[in-house]
């Protein structure tokens, strides 16, 4: 049992919702539109245990903060996408030139993160925890995805397998997820 197997039953509900939500969205009434959103309910409750102490574990970070590197990566579209295009993942290295980071995300106030990146991309704090021996290590790349994806089909079919592949390639053993 997995979430992918629950998609066929959910997709018609989503299609109905897109039609029902259109008039609300056209008037900018996102709250009303999402008030009738058919939440996806996956099958089963997956659970993986941490197999060793945190001080020996390699951690990976995922954020939905809308980050990209100016001049190197395509900026995110700041609004949710309703179509089936596979959502993009941007990679932010630990030693990124922070003056080149940009945020495109309509869902939160950027002032916090612009003042201190650690508000939703806590690279300094994780580095300190690594240096203090509280965690084994932090993966060299943070994975940035766009939040609020109403169409979960491309999320489940494309984005999550890609995230898993990237984490496995980085030998990530546990994931910290920080939404915005």
């Amino acid at each position, binding site marked *: 049992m997995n979430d992918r197997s629950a998609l066929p039953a959910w997709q018609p509900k989503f299609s109905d919702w897109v039609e029902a939500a259109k008039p609300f969205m056209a008037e900018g009434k996102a709250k009303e539109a999402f008030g009738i959103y058919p939440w996806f309910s996956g099958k089963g409750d997956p659970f993986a245990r*941490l197999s060793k102490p945190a001080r020996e574990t390699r951690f990976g970070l995922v954020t939905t903060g809308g980050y990209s590197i100016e001049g190197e990566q395509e900026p995110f579209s700041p609004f949710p996408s309703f179509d089936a295009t596979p959502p993009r993942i941007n990679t932010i290295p630990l030693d990124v030139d922070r003056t080149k980071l940009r945020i495109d995300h309509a869902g*939160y106030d950027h*002032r916090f*993160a612009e003042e201190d990146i650690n508000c939703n991309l806590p690279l300094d704090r994780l580095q300190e925890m690594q240096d203090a021996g509280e965690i084994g290590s932090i993966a060299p790349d943070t994975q940035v995805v766009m939040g609020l994806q109403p169409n979960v089909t491309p*999320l489940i079919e494309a984005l999550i397998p890609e995230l898993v592949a990237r984490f496995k390639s980085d030998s990530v053993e546990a994931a*910290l997820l920080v939404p915005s």
Partner: protein
Amino acid sequence: MSLISRGLEEAGIPSVLVSVMKPLSSPSRPPRQLIRKLNIGATVGRPGDTATQLETLRRMVALLSEAEAPGAIDEGP
């Protein structure tokens, strides 16, 4: 993010989510979540508040280590 958390677990990678909006993060049943009374966009802690930022991350790591079953929630202060 809850679905990402579930997908990672399905692939054998334990995960933990910090949430400042429990009603939005809970319907999809994430395996582990830390609920914090913080702002959207400052989910780890406010600018310059190193102590709160560290507390959030330490509690996430603790929940990863200590949770015994899916649906684990730390809703402490």
